[in-house]
């Protein structure tokens, strides 16, 4: 079980795409920094909802004016980010 951390916008970088091509069903995905802009893309948002565990760093979303509608995507703060890293066996930062 891996936590995949992505930090770049999917509109200009392919890190999220590369990650999604390789992510395992039981893995977790954490969107941080510019990666939270990915939620503005309806198609991508729908795709993300099919994953078991998607997290968004609250501070990064709030800073960018991104509102997260209640869904399978979970908003977490830094304390929860720390715990999440411990819940998964390892963290890969794309």
């Amino acid at each position, binding site marked *: 079980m891996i936590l995949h*951390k992505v*930090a770049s916008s999917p509109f200009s970088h392919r890190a999220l795409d590369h990650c999604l091509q390789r992510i395992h069903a039981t893995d977790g995905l954490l969107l941080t920094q510019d990666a939270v802009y990915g939620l503005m893309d309806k198609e991508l948002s729908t795709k993300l909802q099919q994953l078991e565990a998607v997290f968004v760093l609250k501070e990064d979303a709030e800073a960018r004016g991104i509102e997260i509608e209640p869904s399978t995507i979970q908003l977490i703060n830094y*304390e929860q980010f*720390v715990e999440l*890293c*411990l819940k998964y066996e390892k963290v890969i930062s794309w």
Partner: protein
Amino acid sequence: MSSFTLLVTSAPFSQQNAYSAYRFANAAVQSKHKVNGIFFYQSGTINGSNLQITPSDEFDLFNAWKTLSQQYQVPLMVCVSAASKRGITSTEDARDADNPHFSLSAPFESVGLGDLANLINNSDRLIQF
């Protein structure tokens, strides 16, 4: 209680990564976890430059790192090779190169990658920013 090594590979200001790493480190120590060390590599080494001047109305990451390190005994380790290439040198490294200037001072330490291997060996998780 768990322990972390943070690997910071991006420069301050140019990218958000170092700020995220700082927030993470803070949250970890607040939650009573141990941060064994912050290891600065690649452009991340620029975080150690003591020549940084931050406008007073912007977040001063350099001093925030120092405070974190002093308050929670978190070592701030800077890879000497990656740093030297980017103009980040301790007094000793500067002297070895006959350079009159230096830009790295305590609590940031000039170390080798072997120290990162040690940090990783003693930590539950390695998180890269």
